[in-house]
């Protein structure tokens, strides 16, 4: 990252400017009292805020992750250790203590900024939710801003240290008060200006990552749509003269898209729900049937499950044959303990007793199949009332009556 590009970041700009202003004030104050030597020492210290201005944003970027946050805590700890060393060993010159004070203050600002950023990010996410979600969503919010408090403490401590270090030089002049005022104003300015800017910069970084993630997702969806929906639309245009074919294509595509959106596509037919969906779709394509399908729960596809699917296929074919064009409702309740599948059509219905026994379709393909795996099948129909085939396996849920 070049200096020019850093300069465009307002957080960096403010950090550098305020740091320089602070140092300049210090230099002017000390030059008035101690002459060129002290002023030179203070000027040398100007390197420090510039270094801080460069290092803190860089550290923020590098340490953005969850681990980085805890690493940030190492900064005040290291500063405090340095501070102790200096206080113990310092006998002359304000340079080292001032350096440490600035470092400590910088770390404090970072801590406050990080805390604020996390809190404002949460607030923004909350504002986007509907009132319903706000009422019901469960979230973890750290109750006490201990991190910001630690930052503030660090800044206060650094201010005291800076004053203490520069104090002996100035004790005998009226400049001490002036320096104190300059330092306090500088620190206050630092906190007031820097914190919002840091927060803003960090939030912008978050937004950029969010935008990137959205773009990736968009590309993924676009690729899928190209392979599925656009292909189907092309087919639809070719067969525009055949309304039945168009409707069938549209239904097949709709079902596939729904399965993909629900994340079922990857599951394939490894489960009973997947196999049921696939079978219904297959019959719809072959027989020009339109079914409203609701499947609750799921279970692994075992041998009885396969028989159930085969029986359901037969029931759907019967519905398509005997009630062409009538709406068909498929309702399935699946669980580890059992399965129940209801196939109901709003067709003309028929009188069961009047069906000749040689009509073996229902008997073998549905009732026989289910009995073969320990399940049951019942057909419920009356003239004018539509027909329902109920298929049950194991401890079927909701099978309160026949």
């Amino acid at each position, binding site marked *: 990252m070049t200096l020019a590009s850093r300069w465009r970041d307002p957080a960096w700009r403010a950090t550098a400017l305020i740091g320089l202003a602070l140092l300049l004030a210090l230099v002017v104050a000390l030059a008035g009292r101690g002459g060129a030597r002290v002023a030179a020492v203070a000027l040398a210290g100007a390197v420090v805020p510039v270094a801080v201005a460069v290092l803190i944003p860089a550290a923020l970027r590098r340490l953005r992750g969850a681990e980085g946050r805890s690493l940030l805590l190492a900064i005040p700890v290291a500063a405090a250790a340095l501070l102790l060393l200096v206080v113990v060993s310092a006998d002359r010159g304000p340079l080292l203590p001032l350096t440490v004070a600035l470092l400590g203050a910088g770390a404090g600002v970072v801590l406050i900024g990080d805390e604020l950023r996390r809190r404002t990010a949460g607030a923004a*996410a909350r504002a*986007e*939710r*509907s*009132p*319903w*979600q*706000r009422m*019901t*969503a*469960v979230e973890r919010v750290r109750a006490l801003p201990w991190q910001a408090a630690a930052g503030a403490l660090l800044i206060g401590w650094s201010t005291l240290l800076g004053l203490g270090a520069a104090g002996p030089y100035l004790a005998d002049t009226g400049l001490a008060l002036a320096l104190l005022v300059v330092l306090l104003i500088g620190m206050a300015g630092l906190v007031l200006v820097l914190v919002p800017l840091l927060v803003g910069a960090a939030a912008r970084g978050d937004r950029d990552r969010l935008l990137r993630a959205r773009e990736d997702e968009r590309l993924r969806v676009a690729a899928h749509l190209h392979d599925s929906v656009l292909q189907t639309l092309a087919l639809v245009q070719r067969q525009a003269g055949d309304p039945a074919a168009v409707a069938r294509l549209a239904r097949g595509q*709709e079902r596939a898209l*729904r399965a993909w*959106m*629900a994340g079922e596509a990857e599951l394939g037919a490894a489960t009973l729900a997947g196999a049921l969906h696939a079978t219904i779709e297959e019959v719809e394509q072959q027989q020009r049937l339109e079914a*409203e399908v*609701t499947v*609750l*729960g799921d279970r692994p596809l075992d041998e009885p499950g396969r028989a159930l699917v085969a029986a359901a296929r037969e029931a759907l074919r019967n519905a398509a044959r005997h009630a062409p064009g009538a*709406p*068909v*409702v498929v*309702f399935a309740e699946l669980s580890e303990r059992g399965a129940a599948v*209801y196939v*109901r059509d*709003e067709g003309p219905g028929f009188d069961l007793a009047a069906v000749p026994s040689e009509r073996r379709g229902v008997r073998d393909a549905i009732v026989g199949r289910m009995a073969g795996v320990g399940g049951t099948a019942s057909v419920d129909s009356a003239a004018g*009332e*539509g027909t*329902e085939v109920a298929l049950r396996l194991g401890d079927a*849920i*909701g099978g*309160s*009556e026949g």
Partner: protein
Amino acid sequence: MSDGTAGGGGRPTLVIVDDHHLFRAGVRAELADACAVVGEAATPGEAIAVISAAAPDVVLLDVHLPDGGGIAVLEAFRGRADGPAFLALSVSDAAEDVVPMVRAGARGYVTKTIDTPALLDAIARVRDGEPYFSPRLAAFVLQAFSSPPAPAADDELDQLTPREREVLHHIARGYAYKAIGARLGISPRTVESHVGSVLRKLQLSSRHELSHWAAKRGLVDR
């Protein structure tokens, strides 16, 4: 479910809220003979203004809208006695989209692929203050109430009676109220009142599974 419309008089007035212009135009054309479409809106903000101004009998409300979704509109009219009847419609068919809409005050839910007679039936029902449960909504609601409630939460709002469960189960299987009444040996009106009490429980219950859907949605939206 098309065992005729009940009560009411005259053509119901309708506001269509959907962010797809083509869909609104399609519904308007389909319903032109049976209903008076008195307003359209594409966002919750527009919808609240249009509904307040036009005071329709029924609002067809899409689940997925920009700026807060259909839920935002329902929240704005929640608890207002003079509000219209809301009929939610969606292409999504996901329980976590549909159940919160009904929880927030919609009196029914239909999929966008519903045919015109069934849609008219649904509009007439909610206009008359009755709930309209499509087979799929009944299935979702059954699922939401299916697991046994926590021992502490044995509030009567938290569970369905066996009879309510039976009625919902039949709706999920595609039976009309009349047929359900005949099968269970009760009148269609009684079937209706069972559905009404399920709707009430759905909107008032504090069941974990019901809240959970909304919470999950909140997390997904982030």
